[in-house]
């Protein structure tokens, strides 16, 4: 795994595919939600229109350098996360930049965007943005815990931190997936997954109506457009990690789209039937339910 210039083009291709996939998938998910509620729902291309509109806004303001850089950090975090993880197993084209680092890089890079966003939101000077950040950070400490334990468990199980190797170990049969070889770890990881997807019941961070929408309160125009892009990219990138670690990865784009969509729908389905937790409730929830499962996972390996 070494670097070649052509990989930049491949990575751009991956990025292009995933952004489009994400734009459409999130719209589809919203549409499904609308249909369940008896509505017609948004057009599937609505995300594109919103994106164009936001880029096309004429007046913009800036609260300062960090405010300006916040969305840049955010989107860099999303793109980087996507590109540091091999997207399609076995494909030379879609290994992206995974030569730079292993699973640990991916796990810690998740925080890159969060940090930049938090700083940008902080500089906007809006108290509600700060409250949103406070809530988000507080919640994520507990929510990420089961994932950390699950990752520890499976890296012990496969004796590697290399994502490609982990995926390779799950090939062959559906029963080689971590989901079946180590269901406890998978369950633990799914706690974290549901907890960090910003969907009900764990969406108190952006809680509209209460603290308008938390950190992005002051963001608009192209800033918001970048964040929207990230909003469709980042969950997919995250799902890719889960897919690679627990669900056998994907060997082609079709498998990719089905798996990503299915995993994504887990959080959606849980979200639509649960009311929102307050922060301390969700912390307690993760410590009470997620943590024991995670501990069980590392003890059982």
């Amino acid at each position, binding site marked *: 795994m070494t670097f070649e210039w052509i990989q930049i083009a491949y990575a751009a291709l991956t990025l292009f595919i995933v952004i489009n996939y994400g734009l459409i998938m999130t719209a589809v998910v919203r549409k499904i939600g609308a249909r369940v509620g008896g509505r017609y729902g948004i057009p599937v291309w609505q995300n594109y229109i919103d994106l164009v509109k936001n880029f*096309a806004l*004429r*007046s913009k303001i800036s609260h300062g350098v960090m405010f300006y850089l916040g969305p840049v950090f955010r989107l860099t975090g999303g793109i980087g996360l996507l590109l540091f993880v091999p997207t399609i197993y076995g494909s030379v084209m879609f290994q992206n930049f995974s030569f730079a680092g292993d699973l640990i890089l991916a796990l810690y890079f998740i925080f890159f965007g969060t940090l930049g966003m938090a700083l940008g939101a902080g500089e906007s000077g809006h108290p509600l943005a700060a409250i949103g950040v406070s809530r988000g950070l507080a919640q994520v400490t507990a929510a990420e815990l089961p994932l950390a334990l699950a990752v520890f468990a499976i890296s012990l199980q496969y004796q590697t931190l290399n994502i490609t190797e982990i995926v390779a170990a799950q090939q062959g049969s559906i029963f080689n997936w971590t989901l079946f070889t180590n269901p406890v770890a998978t369950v633990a990881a799914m706690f974290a997954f549901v907890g960090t997807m910003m969907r009900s019941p764990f969406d108190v961070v952006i809680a509209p109506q209460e603290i308008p929408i938390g950190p992005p*309160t002051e963001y608009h125009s192209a800033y918001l457009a970048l964040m929207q892009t990230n909003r469709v990219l980042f969950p997919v990138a995250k799902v890719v990690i889960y897919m690679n670690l627990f669900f056998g990865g994907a060997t082609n784009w079709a498998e990719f789209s089905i798996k990503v969509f299915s995993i994504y729908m887990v959080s959606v389905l849980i979200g639509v039937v649960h009311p929102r937790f307050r922060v301390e409730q969700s912390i307690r929830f993760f410590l009470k339910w997620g943590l024991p499962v995670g501990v069980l996972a590392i003890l059982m390996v």
Partner: protein
Amino acid sequence: MKDVDKSFRKDTETEIPLREELQPRTVTAPDGQKIEIDPLQDYFCQEPPKVHKQSYLKIVEDFYNWARANSLWILGFGTGCGAIEMRPLMTPRFDAYRYGIQWRPTPRQANLLVISGYLSVKTLKRAIRAYEQMPSPKYVMGLGSCTINGGMYWDSYNTIKKLDEYLPVDLYIAGCMPRPEALLAGFMELKKKIRKGEGEGANKYAENFDWYKANQKSVIKDWDMPDYNW
């Protein structure tokens, strides 16, 4: 009906002093130095609004206008009783989302300000602030007869009667109250306007900024904000 009492003259003499928190003050810096703070100057951006040119290429501008028309983000700000008529739009029966309409909780992310019903002077102040904080291009819709000519509040001592004196209204929807269907029809009309490139309320506001400001200040006697709220 009471006749107009010709003898009544409103008080035009009394001036309202600037609010305490906006008055210039002297504070002591940590190193003991006394420094002057003028809150309006120091804490608020003083720039006037800009008139934004359209794109050089018409086709680009048309494309943008198409996108703007199909992505109307409404500021969730109910000024009067008309706000109650907006809620049904989110329900399956009317489902405004299918037209690309959605509600945003912050003016920074909204393009459309719906003045839903009567505006008291106090609310007008907030509406102006919210409007000015929206990024352009932005649109204003007057909902209900109160915004048009005062409606049933035509003789109220505290309610404005002609919204377009104070904000550049793109569209009025008459009625007391207009039904949600009327609102939807209004949105469709607005879309058409925008697509035709006529949704330039923000530029109009910037061009006639002084006029609007004078009108606003003539009814808001305790003007306690910067001239333009960025």
